[in-house]
């Protein structure tokens, strides 16, 4: 169609240079995980923990009610804690790139766990750095994560330029990317898809549902995320994580970008 060719040429380049060159990440205004300033926290006040719908904010010890901890692996960025906290200890932030390799790196209350953790042996992804193929499985999501995954192939993000591709067949896939909390009916098809993938293979949990079960966790059919279902190589909470956050998570898997979050704290 010459019509469309001309149109396409006339429109010029729409793709951002981010993350390798200059250009916007496209997330202006996007509210990320709330930032917590322990110094501002008022002793004995548990307003944030009470309002948090996914128990991401918790009080680990009854003896010390001032000890508020946050498991960002459960956070759905609803911002209710920001609106509820009487002393502004919770602040809205632009921190959405929360991809981590170890689940405990999302939890501020996991110091002991982090100390005792032995670094897991990591299989090299060196030969996949410029050509990674992903099979996505929706294990019961709300379609938010799919909407953002589909956005990765729009001209703005243009995921192909980074050498990362979605593939229809698990036989060609290196990575299983899972969204959703793993409902009772999707557990079987998910495990079969994983089994159909050739070794070596990796698993990325995208969205708070896949990381920990999310907002609907605990019901009669919802499931609890990938914990205890499949071994996970990268966890990315968010509800849903935006396309730029998903790009960062995939680059983290490939060792092409550093991990920003350690022990539940976001570093620049």
């Amino acid at each position, binding site marked *: *169609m010459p*019509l*469309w060719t001309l*149109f*396409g040429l006339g429109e010029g380049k*729409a793709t951002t240079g981010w993350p390798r060159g200059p250009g916007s990440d*496209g*997330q*202006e*205004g*996007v*509210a990320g995980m709330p930032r917590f300033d322990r110094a501002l926290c008022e002793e004995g006040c548990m307003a944030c923990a009470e*309002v948090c*719908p996914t128990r991401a904010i918790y009080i680990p010890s009854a003896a010390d009610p001032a000890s508020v901890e946050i498991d960002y692996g459960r956070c*759905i*960025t*609803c*911002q*209710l804690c920001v609106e509820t906290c009487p002393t502004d200890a919770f602040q809205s932030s632009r921190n959405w790139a929360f991809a981590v390799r170890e689940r405990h790196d999302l939890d501020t209350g996991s110091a002991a766990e982090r100390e005792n953790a032995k670094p897991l042996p990591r299989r090299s992804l060196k030969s996949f750095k410029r050509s990674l193929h992903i099979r*996505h*499985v*929706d*294990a*019961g*999501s*709300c*379609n*938010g*994560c*799919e*909407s953002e995954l*589909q*956005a990765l192939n*729009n*001209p*703005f*993000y243009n995921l192909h330029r980074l050498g990362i591709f*979605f593939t*229809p067949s*698990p036989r060609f896939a290196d990575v299983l990317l899972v969204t959703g*909390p793993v*409902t*009772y*009916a*999707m*557990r*079987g*098809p998910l495990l079969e*898809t994983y089994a159909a993938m050739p070794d070596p293979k990796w698993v990325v949990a995208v969205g708070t549902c896949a990381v920990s079960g*999310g*907002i*609907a966790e*605990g*019901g*009669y*059919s*919802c*499931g609890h995320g990938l914990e205890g279902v499949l071994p996970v190589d990268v966890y990315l909470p968010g*509800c849903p994580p*935006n396309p730029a956050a998903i790009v960062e998570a995939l680059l983290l898997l490939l060792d092409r970008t550093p991990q920003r979050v350690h022990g539940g704290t976001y570093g620049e």
Partner: protein
Amino acid sequence: MNGVVRSQRRVDEIPGLLRELHRRGGRMQMAYAWQPEADRTEIRYLAGAGADEPFSMWCVDASSGSPPSFAPESPLLGWYEREISDLFGIEFSGHPEPKRLVLHEGAIAAAPPMRADYPIGRELEIVGHATGIPEIRGPDVQRLPWGPVRADVVESGEFVFYYIGEHILHLYTQLFFKHRGMEARFTGLTSLAGVVLAERVSAVGSFSHALAFCQAVEDASACIVPARARMLRVLLAEMERLYNHLHYLGVLAETTTLKVGAAEGKLLEERAKQLNSRLTGSRFLQNAVMPGGMRRDLDPETWLGEELERLREEVAKYVALLGQTNSYRDRLMGTGPLPHRIAFDQGATGPVKRASGINRDLRRDHDYAGYAHLPLTVPTKTEGDAQAREQIRIAEIDASFVLMQRVLLLLEAGEIRASCSPPANSEGLGWAENPRGSLFYAVHFDGNGKLKRVKIKSPSFSNWRVFPFTVHDGNMMDYAINEASFGLTIAGCDR
């Protein structure tokens, strides 16, 4: 907002009421069950007689025995009755399709999972792949199972085709792989926490789900939402329609292998989503609305109008180009026809029904938020094919731009929230015309003002039931185009 009239009915009155409803051109909107007390179950039927008339809700006691199925009179009720059977254990006598819907055939439940005696926290188990898929045998008949894990990044669902050559004999859709039991998750929550949950039932309908839920809570509380909040709600609801319809055009272009057209549609959707996050902090317009008004004030006045006008010009250019592309038009014309009669009887909603000659839109017929004071055009067509569905959505994009600019002109500073606390044991109904059609939330509160039962009727639940009627006797090459032309979500249907 013309509300809802509730009345206690005996089950033997329903056939007469249904006949009267159909005679006047109305139809059923949904049915659901709930348990006012642990030992009492009630079925609620929601009927919509016509524009500018209140909805009727018939409350029927179903604590004992098995009520008759009304699916023979009103076929669209068939799915609601099967859902009630699965989740509340009520058997409907004389049901034309007496099998499971929401729960899979292989699911093992300790008790019907929405009933009060279901053990809290117990998860369903499932054995094997037993499904209710019928066998069709015959010379040259082939069977193509597809899903639940399908090609590309799509939602999970299983589709089984029986076909001869290119000709499709029968499509069987096995949905509800994604059933998360969302309605049950509302139980015990405050209405504020309920909004957060409602936003995550179907993310691409986050705003309308939250809005319909809030309006249901406001109905129960008899609370009046301030004018500015009502107008902001219209603005956000139309922004949701915009990015969804642009997504739809991109996908439709993709299925007709129009590569540049698909890329442009997706790029325009991305622009719309970026406007969403600049305005509300969320690409899906989440965290904005709450019972009584808005969670916080927004400031669209200074910048949004200009951005929307720029987007409108690009959309107009794109749509004009689609109109001139014969290879694209040829694939849509006559594809997946949905006759008016089937659309009406089987419960089609949204742009799908308006493309089949049903002139209904909740924004106009049962107005809410600020729609009563705004110029709203409701496009309808009669052809009922994929092209008509596309044209309706294009016309709705135009109408949305007009609405949004008008809202920006009329917005005045003012309060954004009124206090809203639902009385003990109250109930309410809220609705919204979502990008995909009519969305209802029915809420019931307990003695402490916490949520006791929430029913969600999503537009995709209605349209997934209708969709196979347009596939039977179609051909394989057109299937993807036809599915895209319906613009369905599975999350909303499965819940």
